[in-house]
């Protein structure tokens, strides 16, 4: 199962790769990285027929995480991708909006990678 991480912070990539080094090596987790909402859409098109878990930041220039979420939920019905929002702003507004748009989870930064791993394993 592909896990698409969307964040405008480039260092997210080495962080995830190191954090889940063993999982990646064992083939338990397969990460793909996108640095903007637009890039994420392109990736989704590329992996259209694969089950994908999307971990998206909310606050990004251009297409925001919430817009991305909305687009995905409207456009991709089968299989419905799991979208988890990860944001520094753990406020009610963002949370409600995300839930309204059909987010599957809402995680606030700093990310608890162990808990995240469990969530991902549960889903997959």
């Amino acid at each position, binding site marked *: 199962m592909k896990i698409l991480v969307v964040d405008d912070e480039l*260092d997210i990539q*080495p962080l995830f790769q190191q954090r889940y*080094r063993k999982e990646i090596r064992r083939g338990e987790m397969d990460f793909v990285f996108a640095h903007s909402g637009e890039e994420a859409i392109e990736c989704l098109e590329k992996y259209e027929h694969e089950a994908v878990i999307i971990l998206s930041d909310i606050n990004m*220039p251009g297409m925001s995480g919430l*817009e991305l979420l909305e687009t995905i939920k409207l456009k991709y019905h089968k299989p419905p991708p799991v979208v988890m929002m990860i944001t520094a702003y753990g*406020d009610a*507004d*963002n949370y409600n909006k995300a839930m309204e748009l059909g987010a599957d989870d809402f995680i606030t930064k700093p990310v608890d990678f162990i808990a995240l791993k469990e969530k991902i394993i549960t889903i997959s």
Partner: protein
Amino acid sequence: MTVLSVVMMFALFILFYFPARQERLLLENYNNEIENFAKTVALGVKIAITEQNFEGVETAIDFVREDDRLQFVSLIQSDTIWAEANDIDYTIGKTVFKTFPDSVEVDTEGHSDDNHIVKSAAFSTPMMSGEILLSFSTEEIVESKRQIRMASLSATLVVFVIGLLIGFWLAGNISKPVLALRDAAHKVGEGDLTQSVSSNSKDEVGELGLAFNKMVKDLSVKASLERVRSVIAGMRGKEDLPQITPVIWQELISVGVPFNRCGVFIIDEKEAVIESYLSTPDGQSLGIFNLPFGAHEIAGKLVDNWQAGKIYYEHWNKKEFLEWMHTMMDLGHIESSRTYQGDIKPPESLNLHFVPFDQGMLYVGNDEQLADDELGLVKALADAFAIAYARYEDFKSLEKAKNKTEIALEELKSTQTQLIQSEKMASLGELTAGIAHEIQNPLNFVNNFAEVSVDLIEELNEEMENNNTEDVEAIKEDLKQNLIKINHHGHRASSIVKGMLEHSRTDAGAKVLTDINALADEYLRLAYHGLRAKDKSFNADFTVNTDDSLPKINVLSQDLGRVMLNLINNAFYAVAKRAKEGIEGYKPNVVVTTKKLDKAVEIRLKDNGGGIPEKLLEKIFQPFFTTKPTGEGTGLGLSLSYDIITKGHGGDLKVDTEEGVGTEFIIVLPE
């Protein structure tokens, strides 16, 4: 000169006109007389001849014979001599019939000349016709003429002399005063108002002199009043008040009012005091003091009369004078009796005159009571004083108002400073939200990389035990990268904190070499995240196009940062607003571009918002101008930005906008 010519003309008239006229009359009379003689003689002769009484002829001639003026008397016979040719033409032949005296040759056609007058009278009788020719000497006439001339000459001389005398007398009575008047008028014209002309005569010249004196006096009074006005109205503060008494003193002298004491009392009904300005008898100011209404009997009377608008007159004897003086000394307004009395002894009698004006009473003290016209002058002085004093009071209240305005202005300035500070704080507030995000991210990375590195160390140990060299190397490389990243994100966080501190600083700071590209990038992010933090629905695309050849330039980086933050915030605000209009396909976009110019750096901040309407364009740099809803904008952002760029950096801040297309702010900073 005029006098002389008038007299000359009159004399010449007497000299020539009268004798000529007299002589003509005399001659006419003489002619008539002789003609009458001739007629009488002719009548006598006619009667005698008609009666054939030849003695009668003699008698007739005797009528003139005895007259000693007679030169001759002649009886001339006229005969008609008919022409031989016909009976029509004839001549008259004249023959001397008889002459007395016989010796005289008589010309029958004799005419008058200068020496004698010849007159003829015709007679006609049946016996003979003829005429009496009478010649009289003009000697007597000539003599008479001479006498007339002599008489007229002497008359002329008399007239001339009398004329001259009258002339000089007149000159003495008219010219002299008129000339004196002229000289006096000249001096008055030069500003000497002490001039007067003596005029004791009761004639027109005397009246003219009196009128002139009155005019000069009036002028002098007016000048005095004018001086009072200018001095009093020129007063600017309390320190000028002691000028009042000397001025009144001086001008009372100028207008010629007799006095030996004077003063001014300004009545303040609200405070129930009389502000008193008194003089000593030598014109010195006694100083200024406040006399309560009840301090002395005279104070009450003064106020009563002033309220009634009446001149108040009072007479003091020595005792009353001393009583007043001691009251004043008890109140501490007079230091020594000697000064106030102006002498060792107090005056035996003092006449006090108080003349009312708008704000109080003008006091004139004198040995004698003042006459009505003198009081009139004092009144005029008092009125002039009143007008000027009112002006002084106006000035004082104006001054007060001015001071108030200045205080208000000061307050306004400090309020403005506070507002500028609060505008800084407001933008700091906008920043904080952005900062929270911006700072949270690097800190997360620091934490995350630190944690993951701890894990990596464990892994490294495992791999080393397994002798998995390749993995050991990879992990070592990762660890190194992680440490670099931790360092990088730590710096990132600290630079944000530093920026925040700089931003909140109130002092001007110093210019430092700054990387404008980095600054632009940093503030664009800060602004963006700040807005995002405030408004969750907000989103916009933003790009930074940096010119890598851009040199570092000396700027007040925190100030310039605030400018960028302001402009970028405005840009995001504009695109967000436009996005809410729900235009199909609209993508909010903010682009920051830097560019190296010739000896300058250009920063362009472009948005695709709604643009600025033309009518607002000229106002956008004005302080406190804002289009944002109340409470959202201070209206100082652009005005401060403008000041920072132009005054702070000698640069230029321009705006290029089109409604419905967008706005671009262009900052040009000299290198």
